[in-house]
């Protein structure tokens, strides 16, 4: 039982990290209706730029962070200017494919500039169990995971305030609701898009730092972003809360499945059909399958908006 809780908590904390990436998707989707496939590439680019700046100029953490943030903001503005503006009013699917192109472009540029080798990123946090929790409950919970979860929670709170209470946030929601109506009441669409892509760049940076510190800064970071897709399917594309809850569900169920399912299935097959196979590695696809099944039952996700089609 104790092992079960360890796995569960580990999964939940990993889920928070997924949510962090998923947040970037939700932001852009809410404000521009674009499904930004390049979010993963942005995470990768941000992390790589951060490490690269640190290595090249020997900058401390607090020095590299604003510089990288500057790069991400410039990138956001550039994307709006070069990619989005000419594609205004195109079908969503076209914009989606454009962001696939953007993802390739960013991945290529990031590696051309900073090289392809795996980098270590040290945030000064150790991936070791917290002693007091270990003594009292006899559970192994990583300090790093806990801090990451706290950061993610903080980020969500800030974004929620930003979306609901500030002038820009309200403008963002207006744009998300209806581009043309927002334009008609005088909301500057171009600026709003540049802002939202910059904010997504910021979220990508935070996600990139945490994931990079955990797994090393490498190309595989872009696959983490792919994991955010099932999170979105589960939570609903329009909902910040959905990104969090979806992330927790995906994280926990994925870890539990990876630990328990292969042995259960192998035992079953061996017992009843006398087939022996090793089914480890379920983690690679379990989240997608879960999302797929979920889509059949509730296509709009847990917290998404129901769409009504009109002819």
């Amino acid at each position: 039982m104790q092992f079960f809780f360890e796995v569960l908590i580990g999964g939940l904390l990993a889920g928070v990290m997924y949510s962090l990436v998923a947040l970037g998707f939700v932001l852009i989707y809410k404000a521009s209706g674009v499904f930004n496939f390049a979010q993963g590439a942005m995470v990768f680019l941000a992390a790589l730029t951060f490490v690269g700046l640190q290595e090249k100029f020997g900058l401390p953490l607090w020095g590299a962070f604003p510089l990288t943030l500057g790069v991400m903001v410039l990138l956001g503005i550039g994307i709006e200017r070069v990619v989005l503006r000419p594609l205004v009013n195109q079908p969503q699917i076209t914009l989606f494919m454009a962001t696939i192109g953007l993802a390739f472009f960013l991945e290529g540029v990031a590696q051309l500039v900073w090289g392809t080798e795996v980098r270590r990123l040290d945030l000064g946090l150790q991936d070791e169990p917290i002693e007091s929790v270990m003594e009292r409950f006899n559970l192994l919970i990583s300090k790093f995971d806990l801090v990451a979860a706290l950061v993610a929670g903080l980020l969500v709170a800030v974004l929620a305030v930003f979306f609901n209470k500030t002038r820009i946030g309200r403008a963002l929601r207006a744009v998300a609701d209806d581009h043309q109506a927002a334009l008609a009441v005088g909301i500057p669409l171009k600026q709003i898009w540049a802002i939202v892509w910059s904010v997504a760049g910021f979220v990508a940076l935070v996600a990139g730092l945490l994931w990079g510190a955990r797994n090393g800064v490498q190309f595989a970071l872009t696959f983490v972003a792919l994991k955010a897709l099932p999170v979105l399917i589960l939570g609903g594309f329009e909902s910040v809360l959905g990104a969090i809850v979806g992330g927790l569900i995906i994280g926990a169920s994925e870890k539990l499945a990876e630990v328990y399912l292969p042995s259960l299935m192998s035992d079953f097959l061996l017992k009843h059909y006398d087939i022996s196979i090793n089914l480890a590695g379920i983690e690679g696809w379990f989240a997608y399958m879960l999302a797929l099944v979920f889509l059949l039952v509730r296509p709009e996700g847990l917290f998404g908006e129901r769409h009504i089609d009109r002819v």
Partner: protein
Amino acid sequence: MLYRESGQFKTSYAADQQLFPILQDRIGVLTLLAVALVAVPLLASDYWLTAILIPFLVFALAALGLNILTGYAGQLSLGTAAFMAVGAFAAYNFQLRIPGIPILVSFALGGLTSAAVGVLFGLPSLRIKGFYLAVATLAAQFFIPWLLVKVSWFSNNSSSGVITAQPVEILGFVFDTPVRKYLFVLVVVAVMALAAKNMVRSAIGRAWMAVRDMDVAAEVIGIRIMQTKLIAFAVSSFYCGVAGALYAYAYLGSVEPDGFNLDLSFRILFMIIIGGVGSIMGSFLGAAFITLLPIFLDIVLTDGAIWLGLNLPSGTTSMAQLVVFGALIIFFLIVEPLGLARLWQIAKEKLRLWPFPH
């Protein structure tokens, strides 16, 4: 002056409804086929055949399959490579386990297996569309190669799931040299492309396009959405499956499940974006473009570096490839969303009026 339909009167329904109604088009297609069947095998070197022409044809077939699904029926898929893998492994297993089965039959069965799997993963499309569906097809993309690696039965218990294709033999004639393999692929691809060209102008093709353009409206005028979408998935996966079998049997010879990765799926998606979404010809143009571009880039970068006296770090070419691919995709989507095929169409319009454009 050269290319126009004036004076070509149609006197029967058959003439009116033929595949290429303009005489010059017919001559063009026949010349192209003649060149591909006769001149290319005589002139092309083994390098050209094995490294450029065969992969070009195989990818063109896969792109054709994806184009049927994405371009005609409007259902985005990121799982093309997985369906190719199903085709390749199914064909291998039919060939291995049923003694004396003709190779073409096992290819067709491989395609059908792939179609069945495609329908299975296409089921969510009944309730969702757009990028939701893309995520659903991602499930296929990650699940199928994993399954092929884990269940060693599929690869006849070879390590890490590598299969080595059996020799391709039809009625005692073995397709073993590059020229023979090329001809084999060419015939299969040509026949399937003509079939696709016919299919997209038939009732089902029109239904696909209606669903693509507006599914609710299509439903209102009496098109069965479910049937139409699932047929699109089946046909598309069939094409991808056969392409996968050709990929294994005629191009690489031995393949492993991990070769059919997300990268390959994207590559094929790029082919149809650049070539032309919703165009048979576009699939071929896009496949040619994407097959040739890396070779071209490699030459330019290598020679350019030598010429400039630079020493490029290894991996630069593949990174530059990513950048160029990405930039091209965005460029095409902005400037010409209908791709190279649209450029060809514009050229044809110009040609009809040439040399007196008014």
